[in-house]
Structure formats: structure tokens, C-alpha cells
């Protein structure tokens, strides 16, 4: 069981380098459809082909030696991975809802999630902080010439 676990961990450590090798191969395949030209007159595919080969070689070299454990700066938060994925899901939802719902509502909801959901700040200060910060941000950026979407509030 222990050896299976350590083999699984070793595989996990090699996964990033292996992904880069696969990415390099896929990009090389895609680059092969571009006109390569000649060494005297290199065309659009010349440089990408060389770079893809370099990526495959270097990622392959790191794959051969990737035994180091993942970096662990600081003490991991309990349920840290879950918090990361919750935040990412919220950010993707934010990007999707930004235009139809609007900056003010989306940003207020996101900040409440960050303060209350991930930071354990009480509801009332969370909502107050979020509303004030969103309104201030909206005012500042529209003044700077960045037209943020008004969405449902439609002003």
C-alpha cells in the first residue's frame, strides 16, 4: 500500500513536466502545418518549430529528474484545496455574470464571499465593506475612463 502511494506521488510530481512535453508535441504538430520556409528565407513556422523542439527537450530533461516534492511555503490551510477551487469557481462565475448582471452586484457578491466565506468576517461588516468597496471601485474606474458594465442596475 505504501509503495503504491509513493508510486502515485512520484507520478504526480512528474505530471507537470509530462504535461509540458505533451503540450510541446501538440504545438509541434500544429506548427508543422505552418510554412517552414528555408534556412535562407525562414517562414512563419520556422521559429515555432525550433521553440517546440526546445520545449520538448527541456521538459523531457526535467521529467527525467523531477523527483523534488512540491514547494510548501507556509503552513497549509485545512481544506486549502477546497478553498482554492471554491474561489476559482466564484471567479469563473464572476467573469460569466459580469456583463449581464453588472460590476456592482457581481463585485459585492464576490467580496462578501471572500470576507464571509473564506475569511470568517461577520455578515454585516462583510456586506458593508463589499458594498462600499464596489461602489468606490466603480466610481474610480469609470472616472478613469474604464466603462465597467452596469448590468441589471442599468444606470
Amino acid at each position, binding site marked *: 500500500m505504501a509503495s503504491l502511494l509513493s508510486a502515485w506521488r512520484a507520478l504526480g510530481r512528474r505530471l*507537470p513536466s509530462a504535461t509540458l512535453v505533451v503540450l510541446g508535441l501538440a504545438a509541434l504538430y500544429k*506548427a508543422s502545418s505552418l510554412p517552414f520556409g528555408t*534556412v535562407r528565407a*525562414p517562414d512563419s513556422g520556422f521559429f515555432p518549430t525550433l521553440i517546440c523542439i526546445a520545449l520538448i527537450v527541456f*521538459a523531457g*530533461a526535467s521529467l527525467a529528474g523531477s523527483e523534488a516534492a512540491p514547494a510548501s511555503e*507556509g503552513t497549509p490551510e485545512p481544506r486549502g484545496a477546497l478553498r482554492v477551487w471554491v474561489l476559482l469557481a466564484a471567479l*469563473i462565475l464572476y467573469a460569466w455574470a459580469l456583463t449581464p448582471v453588472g460590476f456592482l452586484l457581481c463585485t459585492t457578491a464576490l467580496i462578501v464571499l471572500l470576507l464571509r466565506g473564506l*475569511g470568517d468576517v461577520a455578515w454585516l461588516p462583510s456586506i458593508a465593506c463589499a458594498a462600499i468597496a464596489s461602489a468606490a471601485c466603480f466610481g474610480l474606474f469609470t472616472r478613469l475612463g474604464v466603462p465597467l458594465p452596469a448590468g441589471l442596475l442599468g444606470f
Partner: protein
Amino acid sequence: MDILHSLALGFSVSLQPINLAYCFVGVLLGTLVGVLPGLGSAATIALLLPVTYSMSATSAVIMLAGIWYGSMYGGSTTSILLRVPGESASVMTCIDGFEMARRGRAGAALGIAAFGSFIAGIVGLVGLVLVAPPLADFALDFGPPEYFALTLLGLTLVSYLGSGSVPKALAMAALGLLLGTVGLDPVRSAERFTFGTLTLQGGIDLVPMVMGLFGVSQVLHLVNTRSEPLESVGQLGGLLSLLPNRQEWRDAWGAIGRGTVIGFLVGLLPGAGGTISTYVAYAVEKRRSPHPERFGKGAIEGVAAPESANNAATGSGFIPLLTLGLPANVVMALMLGAFMLHGITPGPTLLTQKPDMFWGVITSMFIGNVMLLVLNLPLIGLFVRLARLKTVYLIPVIVVACLVGAYAVNNNPVDVYVMLGFGVFGFYAERFNFSLAPLVLGFVLGPLMETSLRQSLIISDGHFEIFATRPISGTLLAAAVLLALLPLLSRMFGQRARPRAEPPLA
């Protein structure tokens, strides 16, 4: 005389009220960034790139440069009082600075850090003023082969001197170069890796990319890590308590001088920058000291040398960018991005075509260093309180700045998705020890590298000897090849020749 005339021109630009205001904002933000452990100068500059759209190019670079060198000042405060380096370049200051604070000499440690930083910052700038014009003049003779060799050497050095393994760093540089090819071919304008989409025709935007790599990934890291309560020592008295005593000055002078020279020279190297210069300066001080056992137990030289080194390195770090158009580190790559957002390409012609901007930015750094000295000493108490700010309040600030910044690039939510993608990539890349600096530098330098390679081959009728037969490109190329092969050679000869970016702890 020429230099005096140029400096007068520079001061006439940097002393304009608007530029003074941006310089102040930059150094203040930089100090705060240096103080706050959750946010680095690269992330802050990335977050503020969209804000610079509405500024003049000169004001934008003055402000962003202020963040860069201001963060070096701010980092020492929390290193000494809380043993928390706000910046990686302040890690060495923790060792002896915190010990001095424990022994009741916190004021002297902060004082020598501030004075050492100021002296080194000014000397570094004088070096920049003296070295940049002749180097820019020399670089005017560079043709495509020299630029290709220079970019290749720059990327190799960044990969070699950065943290993590060399093959991983080189793979990241190659990935950056590959990402830089997305969009239209710079020579023939043919589409590459666009998958038929209009969005990718213009290539990947630098702003959402760096905001994701440095801003979003930092937020994910903060969410994933428990924030530890900070230990604090040393009560500070008034301003007078910040003055080192006569013996401390005597001990620190030499260290400041040596740290300044080391910082200036190391800062010139692509990939080295402030952090490595502090390790070298600390190691040199410890080695040449008649009492090396004092290091790690509160030796003032252990504070003076690294703090001087990282500030001298900020000045010299600008030399490759302003004279050759080659960013020496990730912050300079972002600075290059700021120049390019305003349609300006830094390099040897910047001095002749935009002398007001060139000298305006340089002289603003003299003014910024004076501002930092005045700002830092009286406000240390406030900065310490800010450093105790819980990360839960910092996270929304970074998140909203990232989201608005990415959206502001084209007023398009697609850029927000791009930023999130790079954020996830950056988070996991760092967890698996893949350094992000070579990726960004590869991305920024890619178009220059490709254009110069293709032009060189066209000029030489397809003969690769053009890179070896021209003296400058030949030398640069030989250095790049040697560096790339060094890990292999050292393994073959059973030696570990590669210097590591880890602190030589006592």
C-alpha cells in the same frame, strides 16, 4: 558637461508637479508592498499596468519604477521588527536585523538599513547615469545577430540564476517563447496558433497574463496557506533611536560600500537582480569578517550589506532595459510592458529619440530615494501596524484589482478568463518549483528573438556562422551555450558548479 546638461533636462521633467506626485505614489505604494508579506513588487506592478493607460508614458514608468525601488526599502522594516521579509530581497536582512531588534537595537538596525539603502540607491543611480549613455551608444552598432545572441544569453542567464532546476526554468522560457508566437507572425503577418479565433489574432495580452501569473496565483496561494501570528520584538522610541551609535557606523561603513558595489554589478546580470545580490553581499561580509561568529547573532554588517546591495541592484537593473531593450528580471519585463503599452520600445535609440523620458525616469529615482528616506524613518510605526493586516482583507483588494485590470484591457470578459487560466497555471507551476520569471521573459523577448533570428539568416543567406563570426554575437553566444551546458558538464565531471539561489544561512 554633457551629463550635467542631460541631468538638468531630466530634472526639468521629473520635478514637474504631476511627475513628483506619481513618483510619491510609486514610492509609497512600493514601501507598502515591501511591508505587506502577501504582495510582491512584480504583482503590484502587474496590477497597476492597466491604470497607466491614462497616464503619460514618462509618468507611468516613474510611478512603476518607484514601486520597484520603494519595495526594497519597505522590506527591511518587517524583516527587522517581525522577522517577516515582505520581499525576497529582504530575506537576508531578517537574520541579523531581527537579532539586533531582540537585543534592543531595533532602531539602529532600521536606521542603518534606511541610510545604507539610501546611499546605495544614490550610488547605483550615479553608476546608471555614467554607464547607460556609453552603453546605449555602443549598442547602436548592434545588428540582428547581436540582438539574437543577447536575447538567447538573457534567457539562459535567467534560467540559470533563478530558483529551481535549470531544465525546468529552460522549459518555462521555451513555453514563454511559444506563447509569444501566438497571433500574427511579426515578419509576414501570417496567423499562428490562433485556432481561427479573432481574439487570438492580436496575440496573448501581457496584462491579463502577468496579472494571472502574479496576482491571481498569489491570491490562490494566500487562500491555501494559513496566516501565522507575527512575533514582534523591539520597542521603538523617537527618531533619535534610529541613529546607530559610533561603533555601529564604523562597523557598517565598509559593508555599505562593498554591498553597494556587489549589488550594482550583480544587478546588471539578467536573472540575478536584488535577491541574489543580497546573498552574495552577506556571504562576502561574513567571509571577510574577523569575527564571522557574530553573523546570525545581530551583526550590523549583516543588515547593512544586503540592504545596500538590493538597493544598488535596482539602479543597475535598469541599465540593460534602458540601453539594450533587454529586461534583466521579471520586474523589468513588466516595465518593458509598460513602455510598450505606450508605444515606446526601450533600447539604444531611447536616449536619442526620447531623451526627456530617459533622463526624466532616471532623475525621478534620485528624487524618489530622498522621498523614501524622509518617508520611511518617521512612518515605521505605521508600517509595522500595516504588516499585521490580516490577509483576509488583502485578498479582496488583489482580486478586485486583478478583475478590473484584466477587464479594462479590451473591456472584454475573455481577458478575465485568460487571466484566471494563467492564475491557475502560475499557482500550480510554483507549487511544482517551475519559476515564472523565465516564462514572462521568454514571452516578452520572443518577438525580438524571432525577428532578429530570421533577419540574421536572411542577411547571411542561411549561414549560421554569422552568429559566431561577429565578435560581439560570437562572445554572447559562446557564453549562452556554455551556461546551458554547465549543468551537464558539472554532472559529467562530478561537480556541482551551479550557484543556488538559497541564503547562506549561518
